[in-house]
């Protein structure tokens, strides 16, 4: 299946075009900055930093983070196709995907909880554990993603 994917016209375009691969990589790093940037700020807020900002204020920012997530899902699929067989057999890549999958679910959970509590910041203490897990997941995802190029 992955060999078939590697030989589709899209995969060949990404792999052979002079600009497709670097362009997708550039989109991927911009999406990364949006997703991890915003979510790490949310996590730090939940852990007690910059209390002047209400946690509910992060709700529109989380929606923006999902846009970044979309950018990376699309650019990620393009990048994946060009070397599908290599990626599926790479442990670090699978760790990265796992972290992103759990991280996305966790983000949805946090988003729902913030929507429920609304402007009531006093309820946020219970979210500290989730914030720590979220930070760790993105940290591991970045590390594993970078190491995929080496291992």
């Amino acid at each position, binding site marked *: 299946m992955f060999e078939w994917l590697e030989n589709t016209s899209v995969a060949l375009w990404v792999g052979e075009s002079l600009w497709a*691969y670097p362009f997708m990589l*550039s989109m991927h790093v911009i999406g990364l*900055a949006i997703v991890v940037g*915003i979510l790490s*700020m949310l996590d730090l807020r939940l852990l007690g*930093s910059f209390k002047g900002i209400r946690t509910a204020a992060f709700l*529109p920012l989380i929606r*923006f983070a999902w846009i970044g997530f979309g950018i990376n899902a699309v650019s990620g699929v393009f990048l994946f196709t060009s070397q599908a067989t290599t990626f599926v057999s790479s442990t670090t890549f699978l760790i990265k995907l796992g972290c992103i999958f759990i991280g996305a679910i966790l983000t949805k959970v946090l988003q729902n909880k913030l929507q429920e509590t609304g402007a009531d910041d006093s309820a946020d203490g219970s979210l500290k554990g989730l914030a720590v897990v979220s930070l760790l997941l993105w940290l591991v995802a970045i590390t594993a*993603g*970078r190491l995929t190029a080496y291992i």
Partner: protein
Amino acid sequence: MEAFAQSIEGGVVYTWVTSVYWLWPLMETIHFIGLSLLLGGLIVIDARLAGFFRGVNIAATHKLLPWVFIGFGLNLTTGVLFFFGDPLRYAVNIGFQIKMVLVMIAGLNALWFWIKINPVMQSWEPDIDPPGVAKLIAWISLVSWTGVLLFGRLIPYVGTG
């Protein structure tokens, strides 16, 4: 620039960076974490300064600045080490050169903010729609930093300047 790059090769830092095999991937990972902190903080600060997310207290967004500086510090440190580890490649790379110009533009823009906006910000209402000059500064910041990411990522794929 090339003469400077040549003088680095053979130096202590060059030897260290190139001889420890796990250092480069580790520094790349830190560079990515740093850019997330830098951009993450700035997206919140600049988006609010550009007039979005009016419900967020504008002065409070600037409490994120220490994280922006931590991100910048991490990336300045790892960035300098990257340069010292492969000076001849970076010095002549058009992607790197454009990236550095954009970092300088972003820096001057931050200085402009510091001189022009920071002193008057204290008197702003929390839900203010910022004046035009503040919005311009916010957009210059967002565009230049996005460009920094873009050209940074292109460094391995573009040639000499």
